[in-house]
């Protein structure tokens, strides 16, 4: 992702730092940078969230919006489930290499990654309950469009992307749907649904508390780091993203983006570390989400004019 070229001296400094467990900004190998989360800022969307991972107001910044619409069932589609359609786009203003068609490859990669992570456990107890999105079997269902926009890149995207998506889905509210069964004169029963147009009467998605969080590991030298900065990405040999559910199940694993492999023994160590880190991250995420929800309730209609660049967005 980073087209940053570093001098051999800088690369050596970073690699030796990681091998000693002390990175260039003082973090240990498994420390994440500051995370800021904001929800509910897109009023026209059913749910929205923005997550930034980085220091002092500058970092990898992802905005996610969730829009719901009702689809008519067509033969061949699942009969008792709704669906989720993800789309990730990297804004050309996020990094120079995203100009023009430059972001096409990474857009596809991230879209497929997000898709797998969201649905990676949903048939079981991990993740969105898609059957709750069904309105009338074989007739109508909710489809959720999850659209993510990457606004800035300072190191890996996947972690911020999944965090923002999780927050957006937790914040999503669907209008209540009333289903009636109507029997006409011929005796045939037919189900009809009606979407209640009341802004106060909205329903949350079921199963969102089971959605996973992602942790990306970069192998640098003989060690690996969590939440790499752009400079660390430039010396990364291999990268792996692990999505873990709150029940500590692995929902998705993606190794990619780099051209070198790494030993399988490292993989099992990384999966265990991922579970450990994910546990802490879920707790931190819950706090961040609560604060974000509180802040969006208190928000006045006008923009705040304080020292905005350091205040969460």
């Amino acid at each position, binding site marked *: 992702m980073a087209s940053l*070229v570093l*001098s*051999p*001296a800088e690369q050596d*400094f970073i690699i030796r730092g990681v091998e000693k467990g002390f990175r*260039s*900004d*003082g973090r240990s190998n498994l420390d994440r940078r500051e995370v800021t989360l904001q929800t509910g800022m897109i009023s026209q969307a059913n749910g929205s969230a923005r997550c930034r991972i980085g220091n*002092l107001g500058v970092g990898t910044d992802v905005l996610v919006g969730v829009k719901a619409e009702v689809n008519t069932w067509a033969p061949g589609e699942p009969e008792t489930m709704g669906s989720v359609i993800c789309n990730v786009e990297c804004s050309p203003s996020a990094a120079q290499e995203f100009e023009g068609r430059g972001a096409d490859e990474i857009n596809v990669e991230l879209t497929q990654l997000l898709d797998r992570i969201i649905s990676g456990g949903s048939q079981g107890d991990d993740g969105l309950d898609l059957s709750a999105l069904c309105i009338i079997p074989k007739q109508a269902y909710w489809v959720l469009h999850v659209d993510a926009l990457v606004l800035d890149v300072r190191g890996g995207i996947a972690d911020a992307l999944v965090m923002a998506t999780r927050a957006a889905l937790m914040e999503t509210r669907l209008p209540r749907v009333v289903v009636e069964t109507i029997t006409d004169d011929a005796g045939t029963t037919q189900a009809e649904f009606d979407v209640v147009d009341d802004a106060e009467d909205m329903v949350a998605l079921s199963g969102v508390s089971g959605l996973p969080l992602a942790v990306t590991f970069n192998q640098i030298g003989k060690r690996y780091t969590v939440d790499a900065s752009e400079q660390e990405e430039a010396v990364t040999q291999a990268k792996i993203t692990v999505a873990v559910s709150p029940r500590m199940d692995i929902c998705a694993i993606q190794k990619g983006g780099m051209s070198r492999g790494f030993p399988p023994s490292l993989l099992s160590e990384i999966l265990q570390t991922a579970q450990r880190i994910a546990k802490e991250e879920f707790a931190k995420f819950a706090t961040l989400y609560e604060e974000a929800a509180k802040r969006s309730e208190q928000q006045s209609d006008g923009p705040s004019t304080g020292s905005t660049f*350091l205040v969460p967005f």
Partner: protein
Amino acid sequence: MMDVDTEAQDARDIASRIVTPGTLVTSDSAYMRGHGTFMENATIYSSVAGAVERINKLVSVRPLKQRYSGEIGDIIVGRITEVAAKRWRVDVNSRQDGVLLLSSVNLPGGIQRRKSESDELQMRTFFAEGDLVFAEVQSYFADGALSLHTRSIQYGKLRNGTFVTVFPQLVPRSRNHFHSLPCGVDVVLGVNGYIWISKHVPASKIEQNSELIYSDKNEFISDDERETIARIANCIQLLNRLYVKITDTSIIFAYEASLGHAVKDLLTRDIAMDLAHAVKAHLAQQS
């Protein structure tokens, strides 16, 4: 005719104002318009966001954020982007890449060694793409690109440390841009906003080994040195984000104020703001 008092009052009113593009600066026709302004119907408006400055009858607006544009004699840090025929192209954080001519660098084996044909063919053994170079602006090319030189023992390839970028206008031009800080770390403050923080290497050691001026190998860096380098790097980052002038004094103040915190905590919002306020207060006290 205005009397002196009103004129002085006017002058005070004009200067030390922060304006945004389109703000009326003055409608007094006595003033001439300088950079950052435009005139419409004999009224001077600001065309940038910045502070109004007045020198005698000249009114200009200095923008808060501006691309670095080099001046002769500037001491800068640059990154090599391209190796071309008998020259290197250097990213100097400006509108254009600078140029470092092969004839403007010291060749290993003594300052007075003459350039040979084989040197032209082995330019990458001196500087390759990605290398960081400490140089001085010698002159301009016809198209405005900066021409750099490293013809002095303290200039050349940078190693043993880490790189930080700051807003160029926070690095004031001064007599000395290479500082050996009391905590055992050397800082190179490039006027173009590129800063290099490294382990302290005594000057005598550099002079001894003229063969090694283009070496890519780092010296051994101990854990303490690494921590100090990271601490200084974080201090500079927070000074930058909170818009404090970056000089050896402000860095030392920030370093001392930061000693009570863990290095990685220096970049969290609350601690960073506290430290920046402490540094600003200390600097104000001193002046």
